[in-house]
């Protein structure tokens, strides 16, 4: 028998909503499927790609050698995993719209900004913890694989000329300049991807719609920009999320797949934060004005 005494505190607020959103996030199977898949992808690719590259180093073209990055080669799973994290984030919001439970949520907490803030915080913290573990695990596994397949440990980042002439894939340790930051960047990038996807989910309200748009932003739009004149594509391409991710997980400033130049890691972080804040903000603005 419970007597419902009025609780301490002024009103139902963000703290209570965060507890609720955390319960919701971990009580559906899709969340677990996504996060386990994320771990499998990040570790799996941190074995696959370093093995291939270190093994065939002598047969690599000069361009491939120059573009080799001892950290980002271990983080391919992180970059592929962005789709998984996007689905994870989208599924934290859109089912509430499609099954109507958003109305129960809002009847319990009518301040919509608290609902969105709690979702964003719970999602960001969960994603951050899991994906940082992934990116560090991927780095250590990937580094071990590079060494096992003929990579040579070097003390610090090689110049591009040195890298071109190297007889084996250069391998950096976590303590080398710029490495910790790039590994940390992997989890941070995915956390910001989660916020971008959450923003899309709030705006579009539909699961397939949000996932489609995210895939379009990530995979199709880069191709479109490639077709545009270089003056435009070189400006836009490095600022697309996937290339910002590459920039955040690299120790080198490298070129993009289509020949542009990656931004510096800090600029990349700044732009990703801007995208995330912009989309979640836009979502909240729309959400606050619409009928639930």
């Amino acid at each position, binding site marked *: *028998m419970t*007597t*419902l005494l009025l609780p301490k505190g002024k009103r*139902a607020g963000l703290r*209570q909503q965060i507890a609720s959103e955390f319960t919701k996030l971990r009580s559906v199977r899709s969340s677990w499927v996504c996060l386990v898949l994320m771990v499998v992808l990040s570790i799996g690719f941190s074995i696959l790609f370093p093995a291939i590259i270190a093994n065939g180093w002598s047969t690599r073209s000069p361009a491939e050698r120059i573009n080799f990055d001892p950290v980002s080669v271990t983080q391919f799973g992180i970059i592929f995993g962005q789709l998984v994290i996007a689905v994870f984030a989208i599924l934290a919001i859109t089912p509430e719209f499609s099954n109507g439970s958003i*109305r129960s*949520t*809002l009847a*319990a907490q009518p301040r919509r900004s608290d609902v969105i803030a709690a979702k964003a915080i719970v999602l960001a913290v969960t994603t951050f913890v899991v994906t940082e573990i992934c990116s560090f695990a991927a780095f250590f596994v990937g580094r071990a694989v590079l060494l096992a397949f003929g990579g040579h440990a070097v003390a610090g980042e090689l110049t591009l000329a040195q890298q071109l002439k190297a007889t084996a894939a250069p391998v950096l340790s976590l303590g080398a300049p710029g490495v910790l930051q790039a590994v940390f960047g992997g989890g941070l990038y995915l956390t910001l991807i989660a916020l971008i996807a959450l923003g899309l989910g709030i705006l579009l309200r539909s699961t397939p719609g949000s996932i489609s748009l995210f895939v379009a932003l990530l995979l199709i739009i880069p191709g479109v920009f490639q077709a545009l004149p270089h003056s435009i594509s070189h400006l836009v391409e490095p600022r697309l999320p996937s290339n910002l991710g590459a920039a955040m997980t690299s120790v080198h400033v490298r070129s993009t797949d289509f020949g542009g130049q990656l931004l510096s890691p800090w600029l990349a972080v700044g732009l990703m934060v801007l995208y995330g804040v912009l989309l979640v903000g836009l979502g909240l603005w729309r959400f606050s004005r619409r009928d639930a």
Partner: protein
Amino acid sequence: MALIADGFWRGFAKEACWYPRPRDEAPAVIEVRHLTKDYGTTRAVDDLSFNVEPGVVTGFLGPNGSGKSTTLRMILGLDRPSNGTVTLDGRPYHELRWPLREVGALIEAKAVHPGRSARTHLWALAQTNSIPKSRVEEVLEIVGLSAVAKRKVGKFSLGMSQRLGIATALLGDPGVLLFDEPVNGLDPEGILWVRTLLRTLADEGRTIFFSSHLMSEMAQTASNLVVIGRGRLLAETSVENFIASNAERTVRVSSARAGELAQLLRQANASVREVDGALEVSGLEAPAIGETALAAGIALSELTPQSASLEEVFMELTSESSEFSTTRPEGTQQ
């Protein structure tokens, strides 16, 4: 402080339980003023004003598509009115400090993530208003879902979902309860259970506002009525008054000398129709008809006052305001 009688829980709960209601303020009243909702060019709710009185069951009646659900969503602050206001105890919904502890609502039974268990669904909502976990078990017990609390809600029948929706509404032990079509999808036993529950909750001094398109449901459960059609207020009254003031009362009269009697009654300004070999008289009460017959020396074999059922009154009142009324055959009276 009102207690729920032990007897009520028998059959629903393994152990009898009661809830003290530590509430010193007067029960809330819902005030709807000039509420209007437009969807594009369609006006779903049209300048609707009414009160929901404290401590009674008020029925919210209207045909399908008449704007009941839209109105309930606006009361809960889910939909933004195009015009007008709704207040609960003088405040708009979003100003409630602990919404679930003040207002409980059943909006849509199936509006739950299908992959979540009933228990986690309730627990997630309980957390938003700092409601303890023990209360989740209690409401599961009250609605009879304890045995299936771990099962995924997606596998629930409509009746079970409806019970879960009611559990959601009861979670914060609120003083005001809103139910949108609470008996939908329930079997006769479940319907009886909801009726008893609504009355018990009202007896405890709670304000209850529930919608239905079924008139018979209202006659059984509600004491006050708000009737709408095409988003407009048609009546706001007690169930008794509603029937009394809207029904044309008739008296059924049988006699071997019906034709003669009919003439006499018409002379007394009554209107008389012949129905199934008997007379249906309106405009004259049964005692007056009896006296007329006696004065003329006509023996009556039947003299029965007919009271219209709520259903008939409702059909009468809403027939012209029904959004989806069927086309009437030609020649019949509109």
